[in-house]
């Protein structure tokens, strides 16, 4: 019954603008951005410094509100939500991975991973712990749970951050230059992690400067001066992603 066009996109931006007011002038950071992202997509955003990539990602992550235009996440109207409602969306639907890791320095790796659960629907401590431990194991840090961020390498910190982004079973992972602070080897490890996640069906939107990293994405959009350029990249559908994954494991 449901037609192809009516399938609800996970992300749907319509004519989104974002202006920053500095003194008397408005600086347009995003202009008229229209963008749709389906479930399971791995989208890379590229572009020169200052073109608005972070601004776009922050809007997608409900850390900020568009100045105009509409943003629907999984069919729900996000533009116009209050700060508390946005916090709830971030907590339950979105996982962030930042360039500078953004772990709380006084907490252990395990506590950092548990952090989003603290603000979510209450879960028994044992269940929180179990879930966080499982994710740390999944990112290969089972032997580092009691370490604090300063006792971890950059690559390890970013893996803790990825575990944290996954702990609330989000619908969407947003990564802003996740390998920007890492050496090429650690960066490759992190991209491999994202690749695996994508292969398991997670929707990922990542900002990156590096072409080789963008290559692991299935879809690339390029930005210039706050606008999204017409897309030239090939789109690989979900089935293909899965078969690739199977080939990987085989």
């Amino acid at each position, binding site marked *: 019954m449901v037609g192809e066009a009516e399938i609800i996109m996970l992300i749907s931006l319509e004519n989104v603008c974002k202006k920053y007011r500095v003194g008397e002038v408005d600086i347009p950071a995003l202009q008229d951005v229209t963008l749709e992202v389906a479930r399971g997509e791995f989208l890379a955003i590229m572009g020169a410094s200052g073109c608005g990539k972070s601004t776009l990602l922050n809007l997608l992550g409900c850390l900020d509100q568009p100045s105009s235009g509409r943003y629907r996440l999984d069919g729900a109207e996000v533009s116009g939500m209050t700060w*508390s409602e946005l*916090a*709830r969306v*971030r907590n339950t639907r979105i996982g*962030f991975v*930042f360039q500078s890791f953004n*772990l709380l320095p006084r907490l252990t790796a395990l506590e950092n991973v548990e952090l989003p659960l603290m*603000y*979510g629907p*209450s879960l028994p401590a044992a269940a929180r712990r179990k879930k966080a431990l499982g994710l740390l194991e999944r990112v290969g840090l089972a032997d580092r749970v009691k370490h604090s961020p300063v006792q971890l390498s950059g690559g390890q910190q970013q893996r803790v951050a990825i575990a944290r982004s996954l702990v609330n079973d989000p619908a969407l992972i947003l990564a802003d230059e996740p390998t920007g602070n890492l050496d090429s080897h650690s960066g490759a490890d992190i991209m491999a992690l994202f690749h695996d996640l994508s292969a398991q069906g997670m929707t990922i939107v990542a900002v990156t400067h590096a072409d080789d990293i963008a290559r692991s994405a299935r879809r690339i959009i390029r930005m210039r001066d706050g606008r999204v350029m017409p897309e030239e990249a090939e789109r690989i559908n979900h089935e293909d992603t899965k078969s690739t994954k199977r080939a990987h494991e085989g």
Partner: protein
Amino acid sequence: MNAFLPFSIAVRALRRNKVRAILTVLGIIVGTAALIAVMAVGQGASTMIREQIESMGSNMVLVFPGSMRTSGANSGSGGKQSLSAADGDAIAAEIAGVEAVCPVIRGWAQIVHRNNNWRPNAQGVSPEYREIRAWPMLAGEFFQEADVRGSTRVCVLGTTVVQNLFVGVDPIGKVVRINNMPFRVVGVLAPKGTAAWGQDQDDTVLVPVTTMARVLQGSPFDSVSQLMIGVSTTESLPDVIADIEALLRQRHRVRTPADDDFTVMDLTEITEAVSSVSRLMTVLLSVIASISLLVGGIGIMNIMLVSVTERTREIGIRMAVGASPRDIMQQFLVEAFVLSALGAVVGVALGAGAAGIISHVNRWPVHVSAGSVGLSVMFAGLIGVFFGWYPSWRASRLNPIECLRYE
């Protein structure tokens, strides 16, 4: 959000910066300690005053020479000697409801026993004194009516005097020298403690009233410093007082109350005066202590503002993973509350200790009540929440992106 989370975050944050936390709550600690100590001393004083009323016998009326309605309990300055023992006899004989009358003459006494000497309060009284003041004997007996008639040289001592004159010796039957005249000790009064007006009641020597006049003061026994009158029931006090006033006006030929050359008081009046002064002092000092608590609260606000700025990035991270403005607000409010509550607890301990020292040094009873502790801790907690409100609100209004960008 998990109910204990804000508390564990707060405790962690405070533990991280122990010295700063302690300095921050110093104001709260001092304020609470002062409040507790003041209330303890004040409450101890009013408890003591209540006990005084009970221990002195509430059915007591005092008559002083001179009109001194306004000078309260200070009976030493009676002015002209207008009150005589005969007035006392008349009161005892003529007024219904009067059970006993005791003439009192105040004097001074230097008591010597062997090498020890002491200067207690000295009073010449009659045997009725013991009955009116409901004062039991510790040892020996009170002197008799015959001693008053005969102006004999006998005395009854309070325990403070005994402690200072007799070391390991039973004073009964011993001879002491009062103002260089030999007196025989016939009895020791049971200890009564400190009076509402701060006087040690046990630092006293009682001699027959006639002995005080004729022997120690070398004057005829005509005027007295005070008449102490025991009344049968509390209810009859107002009537008895009115009757005494009427009788004395008649005897002294006074026409109007304004010309009275005597003052009649009952004990509740005196204790009321004393306790209202102590209540007023307690309230005043409590207000001052509360102000220092308030100043402590400003200190908390100051440090919380610094703390919010320092932890901007932490706030951003928490917001990014889903902390709502309310969660952030709560986190800092709880931190302010925990800070001030901890300060209050330490302050209560210090205040109770200070009250203990005050009571020990001044021999003044203090009473740290659960009510005053609860009140102080609650007040301090409220101060913390009140002054923590603005910094917490600021934290909750922060923009997550700007927080994450903050270095």
